[in-house]
C-alpha cells in the first residue's frame, strides 16, 4: 500500500507533519503555478480522478475566547478533489473557493509527493518556491501593517 509508506523520517509525535506542510502550501497555491512547476520538475504523469473536483460548503466554526463554546461562524465554499496516479498513490486536496483546476492540481501534487522516488525533488522544486512566494506575500502585508502600528506607551507604562 503506497499510502502506508513512511515519509522522510517525520518526528514520531507528528507522523504527518511533512505532508501537512505541503498540503497547506498547495491549498494556497495557484492552479497555474502548480501546473507549471509540476511540468518543469519531472512532468505530469498519467492519473485518474477518483472523486471530484466538486464544490461544497463547509461550516467554519469559531470559539469565543479560549474557553468559550464553539459557534458557527458561517459557511465557506470549498472544492475538493482526489486523484490516483498510475503508480498507485492517492492524493487529496481541499481548497477554499471554487477553482476546480486548483483542487485537481493540488491533489495531483499531493499524490506525487507521496512517491518516495519523486518526493525530495518535488519538495525542492515545487513546495519550497511556492512556500517562499506565499511567505513573501505575507511579509509584504505584515510590513504594510507594521508601518501603521501604534505604540501604546501609556498602557506599557501602566503595566511596568
Amino acid at each position, binding site marked *: 500500500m503506497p*499510502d502506508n509508506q513512511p515519509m522522510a523520517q517525520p518526528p514520531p509525535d507528528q507522523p504527518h507533519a511533512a505532508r501537512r506542510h505541503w498540503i497547506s502550501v498547495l491549498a494556497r497555491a495557484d492552479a497555474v503555478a502548480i501546473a507549471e512547476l509540476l511540468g518543469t520538475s519531472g512532468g505530469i504523469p498519467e492519473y*485518474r480522478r*477518483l*472523486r471530484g473536483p466538486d464544490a461544497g460548503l463547509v461550516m467554519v466554526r469559531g470559539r469565543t475566547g479560549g474557553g468559550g463554546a464553539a459557534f458557527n461562524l458561517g459557511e465557506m465554499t470549498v472544492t475538493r478533489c*482526489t486523484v*490516483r496516479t498510475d503508480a*498507485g498513490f*492517492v492524493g487529496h486536496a481541499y481548497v477554499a473557493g471554487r477553482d476546480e483546476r486548483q483542487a485537481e492540481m493540488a491533489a495531483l501534487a499531493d499524490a506525487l509527493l507521496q512517491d518516495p522516488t519523486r518526493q525530495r525533488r518535488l519538495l525542492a522544486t515545487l513546495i519550497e518556491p511556492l512556500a517562499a512566494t506565499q511567505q513573501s506575500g505575507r511579509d509584504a502585508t505584515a510590513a504594510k501593517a507594521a508601518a501603521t502600528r501604534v505604540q501604546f506607551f501609556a498602557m506599557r507604562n501602566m503595566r511596568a
Partner: protein
Amino acid sequence: MSAGVSLPGFADPVRDAQATFRAVLDAMARPGRLHHVGQNLSAPAPLDRATAAVLLTLIDNETPLWVDPIAAAARDWLAFHCGAAMTDAPGDATFALALSMPNLDALPSGTHEVPESSVTLILQIPALDTGTRYRLSGPGLRVPTLLAVTGLPQDFARIWHENHALYPRGIDVVLCAGSTLTALPRSVTIEEA
C-alpha cells in the same frame, strides 16, 4: 481511509445517482421488473455494477450499513465514496449489503409504530434472468408476474412468506446482478412457479 481506493465512483454523480434512484423507486413500485443501472461504473470487487450503483445512490453517513464479511474488500471504496457509516451489528443497520441470503431474523424488521425503520437488504446474486422461477403478486402488479433468479436459497419462498407475514413490518430487498436490478418490497407475495 483511502489506502484501498483505486476506483472512481459515478462519472456524473448527480445525474447517475438520480437515474439509479429512479430505477430503484420504479423497481419497488413494480416488483420483479428489471432495470439496468451503473453500466459505465467500474465497481470494486466483489461488487457488481448494479450493486455498486445502488450503494452509491442510497448510502451516506446517516444510513448505517452492515456489510457481509464476504464483501469486506469493498469497504474502503464504500467508506470513501459514500461516507458510509459502517456497523458491525446487523441489528443497527438501515441498509445491509450481502452476497448471499443472510439470516433475516438478525436484521431489523421495524416496529408496528415505525415500520419504515426496517432494513433494506441489497442482495447481490449471480443472475437475474435465469434460474429458479418465482411468481410475484401483490401491490403494483395488475397480474402476477414471473421472475427468474439464480442464487437464492432453496427455501426462499418459505423465508419470504415469513417476512411477508410481518406486514406492515418486514424487510425490503433489492436484487442486483451484473448491471441489472429488481426489487422485492415486503408487500409482494412470492411463490415458486
